[in-house]
């Protein structure tokens, strides 16, 4: 049960961090795309340029790296368990 409690609390806390980070990162990507359009001169309208850029962002590595919010703490826990009990 202690394990369930730990997993639950960790999941809630990490999810809050994950959500905030992904929203922040997407907003940043949007800002960057808008600034890019404003600087250069493009044939396509601003809206569709930003939309295409964001679609690219959605499948980018940068977005997947945010999953590290879950992966890094989990790996640290596994590492601690190994070092304390089996090393």
């Amino acid at each position, binding site marked *: 049960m*202690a394990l369930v409690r730990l997993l639950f609390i960790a999941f809630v806390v990490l999810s809050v961090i994950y959500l905030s980070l992904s929203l922040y990162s997407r907003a940043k990507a949007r800002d960057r795309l808008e600034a890019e359009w404003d600087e250069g001169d493009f044939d396509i309208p601003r809206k569709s340029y930003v939309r295409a850029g964001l679609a690219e962002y959605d499948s980018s590595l940068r977005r997947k790296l945010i999953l590290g919010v879950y992966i890094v703490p989990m790996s640290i*826990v596994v590492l*601690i*368990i190994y070092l304390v009990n089996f090393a």
Partner: protein
Amino acid sequence: MRYVGWTILIAFWVSFGAFLHYTLPQRDVVRIVNTYEERQELGDWTRMFWSRPDEQTDALINRDVQFIQGLRDNGKPMVYRNEDTGWSWPPYFKFDTANLYTEANDSVSTRAAPEWYLVTHYGWRNEFLSIFPNAISIRPLEGPDASKGIPWINIIILTLLAAFFYAIWVRWRRFRRARIDPKLEEMQDSWQSAGDAVQERRGRVRRWLDTWRSK
């Protein structure tokens, strides 16, 4: 008001430092003298200085606890408890209590032929509260003066914490300068002008009263 602020600030940092000192790993060089098991009463507030190895132990008001007795190079005794931390706080995830007990029993040495061990532990020894640090692991050393090694984990954790608090502090200062200070100045200005207006009006009333006074 200034003293209240300072008191709260100092109390916060002292308790935070105590919390870190209790939780972070420390290393002692000891000669292991003996190990024993003793029934402990856990029914009072010092319960928080003992572990919660599993769910059943939460309900118990006493249970057997393993101890490891050591003597330091300077002859001072150091007694450790040996308990699982399990999945609860602090996050050492220690499950190998029985293995550590076996190792400790295997490491017992006499004063005539001492063998020195590095005991990694967290927690405090306090004779008045009858609390003991929890041993995490033991490792043989060449002698009582051998190096304890660099405390990498403490360095990393303390550096990260310092960076975290510095980041918050910098943002708070920036926020205060940009948002709160101008507002405070505004309030001060409006107070001052309100004060001036009151003074002005009082002056007028006084002048009017003065007209009734016999000259």
